[in-house]
């Protein structure tokens, strides 16, 4: 049956289908949303959820079919398939096509995005039930999926940039989904603006590539195609470093790395499934994906790679420390996400692109599970997000607890769960490639990760119920539509890591090799390190449990003792304030005092403008006799002038 179908649907069409199915369901949902006032809300909502889910689900199946068909092909070079649709922009021999490209890398991403996306869509049915903007929510979520898939599957930088901007737009829309709340709308705006900084750098990078390639005897088709780029990477050698840095700044914006991470915690204002899908599992990994996609560029510039690695490591540690003290469950997860993204960049920075992508995949599973679990908790507690108002929910929400717990174990890197494999792989690669300092940072961060994750788990699920009486009887396990995706993600969090070897070999043809400085293999060392890090993580997880469940007074005491550090962490290193102080205020000050009052008024205004104005005004008054203010008169003089010019030209 399927085979028969496949004979009719060419694989190119199928690739398009992956991308377009969410768009179609998005369009339908927009229509629904636009006409929802005229439809009975129940029918509209069920239709919206049906349409909203079928899009991603079918896309997932399409991706699976593509995967299945492609893995049947032996030759790994033939693996990459492009489906050009038509020429989009064309000028002077250059052209940019609208085309998709499926290779190992994008296929893995597409599977993750559609798979996790589908689960989160299903989850959303339960989570968003009864919301006024139900069809709109699904429309935006589907649209996001479309753009994300466009980003992933694009075969050239420009189209990728379209997807890039598109997901930014959807992120903005969804963060501000409840736009009537001004704070939430502001959070959306912040995300949008901060992302623009990165996007600016990104587009500068694209321009640089373009400028460099223009006029070069490039081989292959459109110069911004990844394939052509890869083949002609040599031409880019002179500007590889600036290009890579520019692109990396773009990635920093999207993937929330220092210094552009500030938007992500605020982005938690959106509905929790949105946080799970966009701000944990998929969109924020776009930067990671982009660097992996352009790995052939990055290997040209060791400096850029190092910047990536150090930024990643710093972000990982930095965000983890903030995560230690946050009270809001979603904020904890947000900082955890930033930290994990740092890991991925760290991996990519040391040249282990495969490890980075692998961590991306497993992270998508367990972080989605964590977020959805948190969403479940929040849903059960009617919007309560403060960890210190939770506690003891194990009893009330057994399913959620189980998944959350498993996912927390996974993210902490406990064997044999998914996180262990990927994180261990990263740490090992870092260690193996000689970045011992970075390894130490990563190692410490791993401990912190375990600590804050179990801090959150303990506070939420163990101990006594600290929530108000009035909310107590409302606590209930989530509906089946929310639980099923949760459990599936939990299973994936457990088992996701077991594909470590196969994914490594699967992805290998896509990545340029980085010359290792120290080509020594320590088989034993790898195992030793793994065991150490598991123990290290387990230790901190246990500590967290002890501190927050058994001795609830300790955190208070600790906080009092290290008041300064605590408040530093609590306030996220005052980064927002620092930004305010070093960027916004000075800018305002300079604009106002220095430029306006200091320069503008005395010099430009008084001397420049008014002074010359006075001079001119004097002559102007003389000339004003001619100025009647009537357009025809001016035109008359103009005509005389033209006549003179024409006359001069003629004679």
């Amino acid at each position, binding site marked *: 049956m399927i085979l028969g179908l496949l004979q009719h649907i060419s694989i190119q069409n199928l690739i398009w289908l992956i991308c377009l199915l969410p768009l179609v369901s998005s369009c339908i949902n927009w229509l629904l949303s636009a006409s929802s006032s005229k439809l009975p809300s129940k029918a509209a909502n069920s239709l919206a959820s049906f349409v909203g889910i079928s899009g991603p689900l079918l896309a997932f199946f399409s991706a699976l079919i593509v995967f299945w068909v492609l893995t049947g092909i032996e030759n790994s070079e033939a693996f990459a398939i492009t489906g050009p649709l038509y020429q989009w922009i064309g000028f002077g021999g250059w052209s940019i096509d609208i085309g998709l490209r499926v290779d190992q890398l994008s296929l893995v991403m597409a599977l993750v995005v559609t798979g996790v996306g589908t689960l989160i869509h299903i989850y959303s049915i339960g989570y968003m039930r009864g919301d006024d903007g139900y069809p709109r929510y699904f429309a935006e979520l589907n649209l996001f999926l479309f753009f994300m898939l466009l980003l992933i599957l694009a075969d050239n930088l420009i189209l990728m940039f379209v997807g890039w901007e598109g997901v930014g737009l959807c992120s903005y829309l969804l963060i501000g989904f409840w736009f009537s709340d001004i704070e939430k709308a502001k959070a959306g705006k912040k995300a949008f603006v901060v992302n623009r900084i990165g996007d600016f750098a990104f587009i500068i990078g694209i321009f640089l590539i373009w400028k460099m390639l223009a006029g070069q005897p490039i081989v292959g088709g459109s110069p911004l195609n990844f394939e052509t780029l890869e083949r002609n990477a040599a031409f880019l050698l002179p500007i590889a470093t600036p290009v890579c840095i520019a692109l990396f700044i773009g990635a920093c914006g999207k993937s929330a790395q220092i210094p552009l991470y500030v938007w992500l915690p605020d982005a938690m204002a959106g509905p929790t499934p949105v946080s799970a899908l966009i701000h944990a599992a998929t969109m924020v990994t776009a930067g990671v994906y982009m660097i992996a996609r352009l790995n052939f560029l990055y290997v040209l510039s060791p400096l850029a790679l190092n910047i990536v690695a150090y930024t990643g490591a710093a972000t990982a540690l930095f965000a983890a420390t903030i995560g230690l003290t946050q009270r809001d469950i979603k904020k904890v997860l947000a900082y955890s996400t930033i930290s994990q993204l740092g890991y991925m960049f760290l991996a990519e920075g040391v040249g282990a692109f495969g490890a980075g992508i692998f961590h991306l995949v497993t992270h998508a599973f367990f972080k989605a599970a964590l977020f959805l679990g948190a969403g479940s908790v929040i849903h059960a507690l009617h919007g309560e997000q403060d960890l210190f108002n939770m506690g003891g929910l194990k009893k009330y929400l057994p399913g959620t607890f189980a998944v959350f717990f498993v996912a927390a174990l996974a993210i902490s890197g406990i064997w044999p769960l998914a996180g262990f494999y990927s994180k261990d792989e990263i740490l090992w690669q870092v260690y193996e490639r000689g970045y011992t300092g970075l390894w130490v940072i990563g190692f410490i961060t791993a401990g912190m990760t375990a600590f804050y994750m179990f801090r959150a788990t303990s506070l939420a699920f163990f101990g006594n119920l600290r929530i108000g009486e009035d909310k107590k009887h409302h606590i209930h396990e989530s509906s089946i539509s929310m639980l099923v995706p949760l459990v599936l993600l939990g299973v994936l969090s457990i088992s996701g890591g077991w594909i470590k070897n196969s994914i490594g070999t699967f992805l290998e043809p896509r990545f340029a090799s980085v010359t290792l400085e120290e080509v020594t293999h320590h088989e034993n060392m790898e195992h030793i390190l793994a065991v150490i890090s598991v123990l290290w993580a387990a230790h901190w997880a246990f500590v967290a449990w002890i501190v927050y469940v058994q001795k609830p007074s300790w955190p208070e005491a600790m906080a009092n003792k290290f008041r300064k550090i605590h408040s530093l962490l609590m306030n996220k290193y005052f980064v927002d304030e620092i930004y305010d102080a070093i960027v916004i205020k000075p800018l305002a000050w300079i604009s106002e005092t220095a430029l306006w009052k200091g320069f503008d008024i005395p010099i430009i205004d008084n001397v420049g403008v008014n002074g010359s104005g006075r001079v001119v005004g004097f002559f102007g008054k003389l000339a004003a006799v001619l100025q009647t203010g009537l357009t025809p008169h001016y035109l008359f003089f103009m005509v005389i002038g033209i006549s003179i010019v*024409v006359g001069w030209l*003629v004679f």
Partner: protein
Amino acid sequence: MIFYLIAFGIVVTAILTIASRNSVVSALWLVACLFAQAILMVTLEAHLVAAMQVLLYAGAIMVLILFVIMLLNLTPKELKWKFIAGERLILGSGVIYLAGVMGLALWIIYKKGASFVPAAGGGTAGTVEAVGKLLLTKYALPFELVSVTLLVAIVGAILTGRGK
């Protein structure tokens, strides 16, 4: 011969356009002028352009202008043929000057020769296919630019016309 007939019509209607007291009548003469131009274009085998001249100019732009004239519902006082206050002399001399320069220019062009000789061979018939192909290949960039201009103009017109 037919050219001179049409050209005479065009000139007369053009003069009437600017000379009519009533702006509606003026607009109508302009329509007539444009229509005559379309006929001229048909004689030049530019069928598509002629059709578009009627469709766009006469059919859309001029209707719009008429619509606005009627919407404004000008009073008879408004419609009076008046000169710009007190400046007839300047304007009159200007027109004479202009005419002189133009006449001179024409005379020189005329003297330099180059009479109108249609190029031999086919390919000038302005069919939809031919002109369309040209628009989308050679003039693709201007085409796009014009479309952007149109968009901007529409937005501008809406914003300007909307008032407060």
